[in-house]
Every structure is written in C-alpha cells, then in structure tokens.
C-alpha cells in the first residue's frame, strides 16, 4: 500500500507544526469536495439525499487526520467526508460511492454514510449515531497487542455525546490504557437541536475527564490550534494514555441536503459562519506572508479542477450489476442467500 501524495504532504506537515499551507490545502480540498457533493445532489446524481456536508468543520478534520499515520485506524460518523479526504482518500472513489456507483469505495453499496477503506485504516463511516465508536476499543486492543504505536480514533458529533455506548467505550479505553482517541466534532447541532437543548451546560471534555481520559476542548477555527491539541492527545494515546478531544465549530449548512435549518436564525448562521476555518487559514497565510492571494487563488483553482472531475467521474461511472446484490453478504465461497426469485422458480417448477 503506497500512500497517496496527499497523505505524504500531510505527513510532512506533521513534522512541522507551523506549516500552515499544506493544512490550508487540505481544508480547501475538503471544502471544495463538499461543495461538489452538493452539486451532485442538485444534478440528481447522488444516490438519495442523505448527504451531510462537513463545511465549517475542516479544521477539525484536517487538524486531527493530518496527524494520523500508516497503521492507524479510525471510524467516523455520518458527516465524515472531510475526515476521510484529509486522511488521504481518493475524491473520485469517494464521490462515486456517494453516487452509489460500482467504482466507489464500497461498490455503490455503502454510499455517503458508509464509506470505508481498509487501505487507509478507515474502518467505516456509520449512519447510526455513536455506532462506530466501540470499534476503536477493539482496534485499540489489537494495536496495543501489536505494540507498534498505532492508534485508533473515533470521530463523532456532539449528538453522540448522548449515546450511552460512548461512555461504555470511554470506560473500557481508560480501564485498559488503550491507544485510542475519542474526537467529538461539536458543530453545535444535532439535526435541529442545539447542543444546549440536549446537554446541561458543561464542557464536553469534563465527561472525558470523569471517565479517566486525557481530555480537552479546543476551538475549531484555527487548524494550527486543533493540530496542537490533537498532537497532545494523540501523542499521549500512542503512549497508552487514551484521550478525548472536543472541537468546537459550526455546521454551516442544514443537517442533510433537504434541510434548510428553519429552526435557527439568520444571526445564528451569520455568527457561526463567521468562524470559517478555511478563510481564517487563508487570511493567516497572507498575513504571515507565507502565501499571497494570487498563489492561493491558483491553488484553489487547481483544487476546484480536481474536484470538478469527481462529478464527471461519478456520472460516467457504472451502476453496480444487479446480481452484485447477493454478493458480500458472506465471504466469497461461503453459503449464500438464495434469491427470492430463484426460490420461487424452484417451488413453482416442481414436478
């Protein structure tokens, strides 16, 4: 398994915490990819409307994922495109999967909410709030045993802070000193519910602390800060001290593509969107003199072109063959489910 270029870039960046440009590049790629997902939907080429855009959460995704290394594993929630992309995913195969196509990561069976890739250690996105969390406990057991310093990271939203399985998992990770990190991307909303309407106001990481984890909260505006906090938590986890990191950000758009967020005010949105990690990084790069806007415009356009191609790729990609429906319920060569039609044929054609 050779790491794609993007991962290599991110890995280099990992060594220099101050190098903002590659992080900006990753964040812009996430942003642009998500914009294209929106377009795919508008063009009727996404399979369904259950598309959850991570716009506004780029610093969370990139700040953490850019620290992950070969051998590390992770699971994500339903809003996981950005995380996977930041970890090095091929945007074409991602988009094809979102379109339910054979060329997608999961051959069109999984879709946006069930992307996975064993090559990059992605143990799967999940459409069940909290559903992917306990898997990192098991992955952490395996990593600990292997003793190579690999970690397993569970990414989830603030909504999963309300799922009991998170606490069961944190308890196990703490008890067994597992190389595991719990990352809560707090975008302030779970569908139409603001975090304050779902949780009595205390910092989320206090829950991590109460379970014996190395826990902190970081603002999700400046990717460098996220990365710094993630470095602390992840480094400790590699050493066997499991961690919890809450990243505060804002969900720029509706919950899924059909949701226009009527439950929140224009002011709320304006304020929230003012905390734009991509624009923030861009401004910082210019301010620090690391890049000028011409350079950044060119970069953005290069990314736009790359991401434009994902839609064409998806449209040109093929539908999975109908008989693939019965494949992969069980391992190849194992007894398979019989198709209803075949069974009925057999019954009707008896004698």
């Amino acid at each position, binding site marked *: 398994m050779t790491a794609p270029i993007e991962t290599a870039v991110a890995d280099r960046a990992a060594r220099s915490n101050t190098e903002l440009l590659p992080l900006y590049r990753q964040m812009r790629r996430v942003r642009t990819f998500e914009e294209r997902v929106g377009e795919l939907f508008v063009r009727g080429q996404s399979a369904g409307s259950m598309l959850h855009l991570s716009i506004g959460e780029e610093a969370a995704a990139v700040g953490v994922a850019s620290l992950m290394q070969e051998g590390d594993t992770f699971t994500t929630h339903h809003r996981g495109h950005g995380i996977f992309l930041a970890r090095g995913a091929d945007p074409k195969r991602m988009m094809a999967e979102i379109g339910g196509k054979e060329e997608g990561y999961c051959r069109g*069976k999984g879709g946006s909410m069930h992307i996975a890739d064993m090559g990059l250690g992605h143990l799967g996105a999940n459409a069940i709030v909290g559903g992917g969390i306990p898997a990192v406990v098991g992955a952490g057991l395996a990593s600990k045993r292997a003793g190579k310093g690999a970690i397993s990271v569970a990414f989830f939203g603030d909504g999963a802070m309300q799922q009991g399985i998170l606490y069961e998992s944190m308890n196990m990770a703490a008890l067994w000193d597992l190389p595991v990190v719990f990352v809560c991307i707090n975008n302030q909303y779970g569908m139409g519910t603001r975090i304050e309407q779902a949780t009595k106001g205390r910092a989320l990481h206090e829950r991590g602390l109460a379970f014996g984890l190395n826990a902190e909260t970081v603002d999700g505006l400046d990717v460098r800060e996220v990365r710094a906090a993630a470095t602390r938590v992840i480094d400790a986890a590699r050493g066997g001290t499991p961690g919890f990191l809450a990243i505060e950000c804002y969900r720029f758009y509706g919950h899924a593509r059909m949701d226009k967020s009527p439950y929140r005010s224009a002011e709320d949105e304006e304020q929230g969107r003012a905390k734009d990690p991509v624009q923030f990084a861009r401004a910082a790069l210019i301010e620090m003199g690391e890049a000028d806007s011409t350079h950044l415009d060119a970069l953005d356009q290069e990314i736009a072109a790359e991401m434009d191609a994902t839609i064409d790729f998806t449209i040109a990609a093929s*539908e999975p063959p109908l008989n693939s429906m019965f494949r992969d319920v069980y391992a190849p060569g194992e007894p398979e489910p019989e198709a209803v039609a075949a069974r009925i044929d057999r019954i009707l054609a008896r004698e």
Partner: protein
Amino acid sequence: MVQMTYRDALKQALRDAMTEDDSVVVIGEEVGRYGGAYGVTKGLYEEFGAARMIDTPISEPAIIGAAVGAAMSGLRPVAELMYVDFIGMTMDQLGNQAAKIRYMFGGQIGVPMVLRTQGGTGRSAGAQHSQSLEAYVLHTPGLRLVMPATVSDAYHLLRQSLRQPDPVVFIEHKALYTLKEEVDLSAPPPAWGKAAVRRTGDDLVIVTYSRQVHHALKAAEELSKQGLEATVIDLRCLNPLDFDTVRQHVERVGRVMVVSEGVMTAGVGAELSARIHEECFDFLAEPVIRLCGEDIPISVSVDLEANSVPTSQAVQQVAARLLAERSAA
C-alpha cells in the same frame, strides 16, 4: 370526508388524541421544534408546547425507557423512534421491559405507550436506514404491532393505538407519507385488530400489509386485465392478528401469496405462511408462496435497493406464474 396525506392523518390523530386526553405526550428526537424527521409532528409543538412535545437527546434506549416509566406513572407517551432501524439498541427496553412488565409484575400494571416509528426502502438511505424490522416485534410477546397502509388507517389506527392498555409498536412506511386519499375522520374506527379486505377475487389471495398493499393492489389491477382476480388482504395489525379473515378467504380461494418487505427468513411472511398451511391445509391447492425482501442488507445504489424488496411487477409476475402453472397442471 376530506383529502389528506398519510403524514397529515398521523398528525391529526396525534392532535386529536392530545386534545382529548391531556396525559398524551410525544417524546423523541426532533419531534418538537423540528417537527419530526418526516414532518409528521410539524406544528404540534406550537399547539401543545414543549411540555407535551418533548424533544430529547439522541438516546434511543433511554427514550424508550423513559416512555415505559412515564406510562407506568399515568402519562400516555408516544415515543418516537426516528427509524425502525434503530430498534436494535432499544430492544432491551422494549422487549425485556415494556413487553414484560405487566406479566412479570403479575398484572399489577401495564405499559400503555405507543412507539411510533417508520421503516422500509425508497430513499437510498442505505443498510442502516431502510429496513423492515417488524418481525423482531412480532416475535416478542407483550407488544402489539400495527402497520397502516392507508391514510384512513394512519388516522384511525393511531387513535386506537393510543387507547390500548398495552404497548403498541406503530410502524409507518417512509414511502407512504405523501400518499393522499379520502378519509372520514369521524367514522367509527375499525374493530381493533381487524384486517381489511381491499379487493376480492376468486383466483388468488394476497396477504400483505404496509406499503406492499399498494403494490399488491396495483398488481391485482394488472392481473385483472388478464382475467385473473385476486383478493388482497391488508392485515393492518400483526398483533393482534385477524387470522379469521385470512382463513375465510384462503379457504374460499385455495391459492395464496404472502407479500412482505421484511427479509424472508424468519420474517412475518414465515409466520403467515406457517399459520396458513397449518390451519387451511386441506383447502390449499398449492403451497403458500412467500414474496419477501431478499435475505440481504439494503444497498444505497438505487437499482440494488429497489430490487431488494418486492416490487409491484414482481408481485404481478409471481402471481401470474403461480396461476399459470396451476391451470396448466
């Protein structure tokens, strides 16, 4: 009689029940301000307020558990599970608590709650948001099970469910919310548990429920053009089950298909097939044919999803073949 959608009929049932009975409260994710993931409760928060339209954290096990406690304490909760696919994490509260409390406690108290949820395919929502899991419920003694196919039943059966002394799992179908039909809100409700014979014919009986009723009716219309006449029975309630109606038509016709969107193995279709064979054996010209969901998870791909469950064409084709083979035999 008014024209109304399945969605609005459900809302009207909740509204009427809440108006009539102050102890009715709705509790679930996004049921209040948001108005429900599929819009069923839209507006009720404004009408009844936060104390009766209770938005919860995303905690399915505790939502069901809280509803159990509320039902034991004089409230009449309608707990909403956004997708029936999430029932897996609640089966302890539902199956070990709600279903068994009356029995374990020697009849001291019941759990008069309604669990409203929705299931089924049709939105490319993938393996964890498209299932038909009613068989888990049917296999759990103590739980009633209602699955309305029509707008009128959406209204009347939800009202009736809210009058039951025992827990009722009420499963809507996500593809039916926009269905629009005539409904008489003030009509007397159907007898509790009674199946509806949606169409009568002498060649074949199709026993089904929920969205598949519509597939079966459409198939029956097509078959009728070929001179084949099907009876279509909409069970509506699976517990209690109106087997008498099924028996009556099966004995008359002698050829039966059972149609269900849930996966075939150990599903509702299995129970219906087993019972029909057991109880009507001497009247059957042929074995009961099950046309059910494939024994596979549901894909996101539009085509794969559509073909994972019975389509109207499949109902028609299988029915035609069943009849053709027989007349040839």
